[in-house]
């Protein structure tokens, strides 16, 4: 009854079965296609870049001097602080080692406390050249700044939060 003929056919059948099962598994498990945007990897890089830029701007040139960031925030829109802030920020984060500069854009606002109210003031307006498209893929980076008496946000010494919205157009 039982003989050992046709072993190769049996093996072929098993191999085909395994391959079909694996194919079905891979097809079923790949229910969605991940693009780079879905995987948040550019977001992660952008957030780290933005945080680093703010940290650079918050580092004073010498001990016991004011950092650029603090000076810009304290100067406020009126004294051109917001323009300088925008230019410095974009200069730092668009800089590449060689070739054309990167195309990152930003807007910024400052959050401060007045009594029981948390208020927000626009510091750098979003660009009006049509690159204001990046709401969805924008990341937010923040930095604390402590201001002395007589700052634009109140008469007492204050801690304000600078929030920068950063996106690639």
């Amino acid at each position: 009854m039982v003989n050992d003929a046709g072993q190769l056919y049996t093996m072929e059948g098993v191999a085909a079965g395994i391959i079909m099962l694996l194919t079905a598994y891979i097809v079923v498990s790949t229910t969605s296609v991940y693009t780079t945007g879905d995987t948040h990897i550019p977001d992660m890089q952008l957030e780290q870049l933005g945080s680093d830029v703010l940290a650079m701007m918050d580092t004073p040139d010498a001990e016991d001097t004011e950092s650029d960031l603090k000076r810009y925030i304290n100067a406020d829109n009126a004294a051109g602080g917001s323009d300088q802030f925008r230019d410095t920020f974009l200069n730092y984060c668009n800089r590449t080692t060689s070739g054309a500069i990167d195309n990152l854009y930003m807007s910024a606002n400052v959050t401060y406390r007045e009594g029981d109210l948390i208020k927000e003031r626009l510091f750098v307006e979003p660009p009006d050249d049509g690159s204001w498209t990046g709401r969805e893929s924008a990341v937010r980076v923040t930095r604390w700044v402590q201001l002395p008496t007589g700052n634009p946000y109140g008469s007492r010494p204050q801690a304000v939060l600078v929030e920068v919205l950063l996106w690639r157009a």
Partner: protein
Amino acid sequence: MACMNEEGQWIVLMGLLVAVALFFLALIINQSALVGQTTAEGVLEFPKNDIRDLREAVFDYVKEFGDADNAVREDIIAISLERKNAVVSFTVNQKMDVSGHWLHPVEIHYNNGVTVYNETVYY
């Protein structure tokens, strides 16, 4: 079945091995996108820069006001809750002798619901 030729079985076996190996490689590529996503989300969720920045803000506070109470503390606590979704608290005590240096013991607490950070530091 008749006239079955059993030669070349090694070639068939090697073909099978190559096919299986290719499927495992396909499986690895299939998973790699997911690994990148999980890592990136983990990094995005972990508030590394927020905690570093908070520490710096607290140290600025200690440098400016020492252990005196100031409204700046309320600024940091209230704005953290409102804009960073983080419950923050910190205390600064009187200077004490730490190995010959007079330093303020500072306690920093941070909790954003996912990550909890507590620190006692002498500044």
